[in-house]
């Protein structure tokens, strides 16, 4: 009998206490924001979409090797001895033409492991986080600045240079 009355009493009391908590919350201003109209600024270390500044890229392949999901693909062609590609912003002399630099953002896991090894700090994370596409192929970003003909041209030049070197070596022997 005592158990019975205790049950009724505890049920009523705990329900009333719970109701008091929810009533208090009815008058607290809400903590949510209306997203597309109101956007809060993200912190500075936030990891969003990557960007590559091709003027500084020396084609060293460190970022592609550091990536755990292999989403960066880089192909380079050695420059001929006479060509001058210019300097990067911190004084390094560039020696490679970068013919392919694609990052597949569908694969990228936004882990930031590619940003740290870069010797010229040319790959970094930006503030862009709203970049959805309807077609998955549109998420493969191509950063190389050479046009299609220029890439073919550089590759041709290099191939011919190597052929000539082979020919002159075999002539010497």
């Amino acid at each position, binding site marked *: 009998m005592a158990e019975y009355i205790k049950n009724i009493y505890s049920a009523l009391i705990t329900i009333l*206490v*719970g109701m008091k908590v929810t009533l208090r919350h009815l008058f607290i201003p809400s903590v949510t924001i209306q997203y597309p109209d109101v956007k809060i600024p*993200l*912190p500075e270390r936030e990891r969003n979409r990557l960007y590559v500044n091709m003027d500084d890229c020396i084609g060293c392949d460190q970022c592609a090797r550091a990536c*755990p999901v292999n989403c960066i693909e880089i192909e380079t062609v050695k420059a001929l001895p006479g060509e001058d590609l210019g300097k990067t912003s911190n004084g390094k002399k560039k020696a490679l033409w970068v013919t392919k630099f694609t990052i597949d953002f569908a694969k990228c896991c936004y882990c930031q492991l590619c940003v740290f090894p870069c010797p010229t700090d040319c790959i970094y994370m930006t503030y862009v986080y709203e970049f959805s596409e309807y077609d998955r192929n549109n998420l493969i970003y191509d950063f190389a600045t050479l046009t299609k003909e220029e890439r073919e041209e550089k590759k041709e030049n290099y191939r011919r240079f190597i052929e000539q070197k082979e020919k002159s070596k075999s002539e010497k022997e």
Partner: protein
Amino acid sequence: MSVRTEEMVLNMGPQHPSTHGVLRLELTLEGEIITKVVPHIGYLHRCFEKHCEVMTYPQIIPYTDRMDYLAAMCNELGFVIGVEKLLAIQVPERVEYIRVIMAELQRIASHLVAIGTYGADIGAFTPFLYCFRDREKILNLFEITCGARLLYNYIWIGGLSHDLHPDFIRLTKEFIREFKPNLRELNNLLTYNKIFIDRTANIGILPLETAINYGVTGPMLRASGLRWDLRKDDSYSIYNKFDFEIPIGEGKMGTIGDSWDRYFVRVREMEESIKIIEQAIEQIPDGDVTAGIPKRIKPVVGHIYSRVENPRGELGYFIISDGSATPFRVKVRAPSFVNLQVLDVLCRGHMVADVIAILGSVDIVLGEVDR
């Protein structure tokens, strides 16, 4: 004329509204009482252990995050401690303190999810949102430190990826100040509510003998009465410098080892984590966190088993290294995988509506079960 009854097989399919991920439970019922439960897993298998054989040690860390995605810092910590022992390097003290603060904050966040979703399964929708509101503050703390809210890649071999943000300590103190009254409110709303107690007390009782025989660890073992916690019994990092208690289940509302005890152990663990964080913030020294990171990570040939206290139990990594930059084999002992075995024993003799209450109190994360 006697009534012929036969057993019915009911399928709680991979998709059901009681969260927890993709788990298929095959229940064999006799009337309304359950006679057997067979969990079918593997819907989230992503070949973590095979990937580890071809990646270098720093590249594995983002993958360890994704196993138990609700407690990512503790996953990274386990792996990194193992590799550091193989490399025989010592990290600066500031790094250790920051790692402990992050792991304890992560413990609170994970327990908030466990408690919130447990309430939502039982039918109380409001505590779920209150828990997630508090968890948002923790995720904001993580966001200003390393840039990500859920999968951090923060604890590196030999150190950390970034130092603490200048505002971190101030915001953490603010969070602790706001969290303590919120925890009291949560207790008033859910923990001591008579209806909740009726739904969870004396349901799914796990006797201590059975728990030890099955290899159950974490809050489930502690709720059955054994005071075993890796942070005190096999201390790693600098946990032996802090003063905190290990809560165990005492059967306050039913028997020792029922679902209410498992739930209440998690609530008490959050309070203890707050104590650890407060002490760590007081004692944290200065230093450089990236100084100790080695340039080349090539451990000696050998193997090591390192274990940490995940919010769900004992997370163990067995790393076999062959001297090269990629490990030979990494085997993970996931706590949820081991804890899930006990589901059959827990559910026998209960009704169908209790399966959800029991599953919620076991607190599994399918990413860890399937790896």
